[in-house]
């Protein structure tokens, strides 16, 4: 038995009625049932608490473990029963909360639904409103957190929005109890019929209206009360699995087949149905929401106008890279010097200790030159890597690296490279192996192959560490500029090779991706610390495995068969065989051998120098001229990828021919560049 409030109203095909009192406060009064709907974190609970206070009843929704809260509020001699619906983003049955919310509104027919929206980001909540308006219950829109919107410079013209939507719109700051009375008045204006409720609902495109009409005709006789037939048909068209399951159980086989045929033919109708709702939201927002003008925009937008700009963004990227290298040298350099001193003392101590024990000379040599000279030298990279990763971690945590990716991507587009290739190539800055493997995300075989061929030109972290150490040894204070130029050289070589190959291998396939750039924020020291720690540990693991083995092999080849006379060693024989090539770059054979060992792992160049020269940072500058040193660095940067990368190139391309072409291209490129640098440099 229901007590009617005022005249019976017909809204969306249903009759709205007030209810008998449910709670103690409402005894003897008409009860108006009000459902509170909204996304999580829009202040719905605050409103509920402000209104219901101690009258709240907390339980579970029938048959569900989701909390149900109800409570009463007395307003103008009416008992309002508020039902707090679970927070939902839509009513599409994607979650149990969404099913509860829509089932409640359909089956329990509340007198009014209050849709709570975060006024600072109204677009996010209006999709839910668009769906609520399709259900048979009148809706009051509450724009909560108007104070936050104001702080953000967002102006919500609630009057305009009300006129555009045709439903009551109430501004509110629930935390300050502002607008609550207005909301209660708006609810009562719906209930007593003083507000002319004429919602302007989103419509669907003409192309699908006939399809919808067809579905409505098919299901009309089978949809049970209180489900609105047009809503059920629309949900079918949207691909709502729950509604489809229910309908398929209710309709006879021939109708089921017809429905299936229609839905199969219009599989993508959801794009038009949901798309029309977003277009509707866009119109509402344009009509009633005024966003900050240029100059008042947020920090992220302001920074992005510079940092993602084609010219200024590129300059900023180059400056950021220069900053990374500058910090790496100025901070890590001295620490690395201390580590080297420590290492020298350790080697000396080990040799003395072994001699005292009467161990053979080769064992002392193995420990001091092979182990400490090879692996130990690589471990002195640690300060450089720590600073390198700390600065990268800082840039990442602030949100800048995403912009760097954006700027790099545009740069590659300009050079005629495949846009989607940017992702795997970006990985190459860490390690070339995942860069090559990552090319799998590219659908086109030709584009994938091009990316595989180019990936090794991205300087990996190990290569960066090697040129950082050698750059400091050869060029002192100018090392930062030199290394920065080497990175630029590699990227230019990558782009140039890409353009050339693109012209012959790939012909302008479009990129199909978009990036969602994160907001800038202050970096977290813990996050950066963890990032640095994990990378250092990973590096030490590598030093203890691949580099250890390679160092021992290099030591063996340089010690035997002449018992320590390196000039008569296996290594010397190999080096002398290729020495004529080295002469063109001004490089003696031990340097060439060190470069060759980088084929196992890039860091081995340093480890080999450590084995062959001991204090190579002091020795090498006396052996190599400026042009030769530069040729060495250029050769190292452009040289063939490491063994692991070559292996995955073969695996991913599935072709020895293309693997050989890729490796051969880089070998030729590195030789030509190294020779050119030395020969031209010697003429100057």
């Amino acid at each position, binding site marked *: 038995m229901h007590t009617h409030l005022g005249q019976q109203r017909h809204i969306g095909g249903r009759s709205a009625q007030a209810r008998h009192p449910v709670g103690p406060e409402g005894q003897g009064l008409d009860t108006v049932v009000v459902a509170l709907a909204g996304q999580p974190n829009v202040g719905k609970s605050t409103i509920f608490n402000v209104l219901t206070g101690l009258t709240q009843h907390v339980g579970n929704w029938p048959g569900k473990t989701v909390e149900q809260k109800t409570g009463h509020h007395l307003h103008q001699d009416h008992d309002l029963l508020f039902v707090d619906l679970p927070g939902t983003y839509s009513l599409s049955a994607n979650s149990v909360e969404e099913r509860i919310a829509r089932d409640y509104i359909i089956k329990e027919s509340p007198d009014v639904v209050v849709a709570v929206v975060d006024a600072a980001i109204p677009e996010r909540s209006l999709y839910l409103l668009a769906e609520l308006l399709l259900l048979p219950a009148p809706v009051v829109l509450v724009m909560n957190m108007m104070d936050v919107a104001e702080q953000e410079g967002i102006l919500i013209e609630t009057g305009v929005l009300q006129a555009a939507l045709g439903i009551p719109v109430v501004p509110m700051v629930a935390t300050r109890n502002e607008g609550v009375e207005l909301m209660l008045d708006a609810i009562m204006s719906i209930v007593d019929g003083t507000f002319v409720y004429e919602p302007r609902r989103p419509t669907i495109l003409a192309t699908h209206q006939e399809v919808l009409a067809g579905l409505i005709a098919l299901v009309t006789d089978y949809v049970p009360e209180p489900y609105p037939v047009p809503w059920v048909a629309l949900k079918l068209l949207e691909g709502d699995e729950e509604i489809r399951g229910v309908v398929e159980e209710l309709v006879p086989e021939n109708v089921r087949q017809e429905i299936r045929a229609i839905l199969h033919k219009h599989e*993508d109708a959801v*794009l038009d149905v949901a798309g029309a709702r977003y*277009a509707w939201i866009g119109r509402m927002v344009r009509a009633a929401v005024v966003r900050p003008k240029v100059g008042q925009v947020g920090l992220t937008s302001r920074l992005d106008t510079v940092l993602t700009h084609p010219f200024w963004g590129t300059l900023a990227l180059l400056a950021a890279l220069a900053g990374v290298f500058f910090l790496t040298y100025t901070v890590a350099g001295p620490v690395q010097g201390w580590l080297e001193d420590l290492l020298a003392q350790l080697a000396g101590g080990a040799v003395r200790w072994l001699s005292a024990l009467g161990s053979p000379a080769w064992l002392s040599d193995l420990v001091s030159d092979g182990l400490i000279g090879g692996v130990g030298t690589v471990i002195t990279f640690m300060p450089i890597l720590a600073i390198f990763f700390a600065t990268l971690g800082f840039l*990442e945590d602030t949100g800048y*690296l*995403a912009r760097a990716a954006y700027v790099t991507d545009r740069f590659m587009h300009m050079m005629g490279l495949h846009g989607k290739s940017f992702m795997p190539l970006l990985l190459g800055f*860490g390690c070339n192996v995942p860069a090559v493997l*990552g090319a799998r995300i590219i659908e086109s075989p030709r584009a994938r192959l091009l990316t595989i061929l180019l990936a090794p030109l991205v300087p990996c972290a190990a290569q960066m560490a090697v040129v950082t150490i050698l750059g400091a040894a050869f060029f002192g204070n100018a090392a930062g500029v030199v290394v920065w130029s080497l990175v630029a050289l590699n990227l230019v070589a990558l782009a140039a090779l890409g353009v050339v190959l693109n012209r012959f291998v790939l012909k302008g396939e479009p990129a199909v991706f*978009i990036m969602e750039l994160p907001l800038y924020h202050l970096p977290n020291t813990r996050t950066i610390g963890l990032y640095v720690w994990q990378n250092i540990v990973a590096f030490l693991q*590598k030093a203890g495995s691949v580099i250890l083995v390679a160092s021992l092999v290099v030591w063996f080849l340089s010690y035997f068969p002449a018992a320590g006379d390196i000039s008569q060693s296996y290594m010397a024989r190999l080096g002398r065989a290729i020495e004529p090539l080295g002469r063109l770059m001004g490089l003696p054979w031990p340097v060439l051998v060190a470069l060759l060992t980088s084929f196992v792992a890039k860091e081995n160049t340093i480890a080999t120098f450590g084995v062959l020269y001991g204090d190579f940072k002091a020795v090498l500058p006396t052996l190599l001229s400026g042009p030769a040193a530069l040729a060495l660095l250029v050769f190292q940067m452009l040289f063939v990828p490491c063994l692991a990368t070559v292996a995955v190139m073969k695996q991913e391309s599935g072709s020895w021919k293309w693997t050989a072409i890729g490796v051969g291209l880089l070998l030729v490129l590195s030789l030509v560049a190294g020779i050119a640098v030395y020969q031209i440099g010697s003429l100057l």
Partner: protein
Amino acid sequence: MLKRILRMMAMGEIQTQIELATALDVPEPLLSQMVAQLASQGYLTRAVMGADGCEGCSLHMQCNPDRRLRIWTLTEKGQRAVAS
């Protein structure tokens, strides 16, 4: 509106959500929501940085240059929708 997003992505001239939002004349938060919906319905997928086999690598931490960067690509379903 959603189909336009897929079409514009397929054209390959748009790189970020901000650019896409500007081209469609919609606020970026709304575009984010649309992209999320397209992803939930299988038209877009979030590109994963890294590759098969990276899990066992001691250097895998170095591979993802920005873990907060989200990159969306068209799925086969998305490409079919564009072509239809």
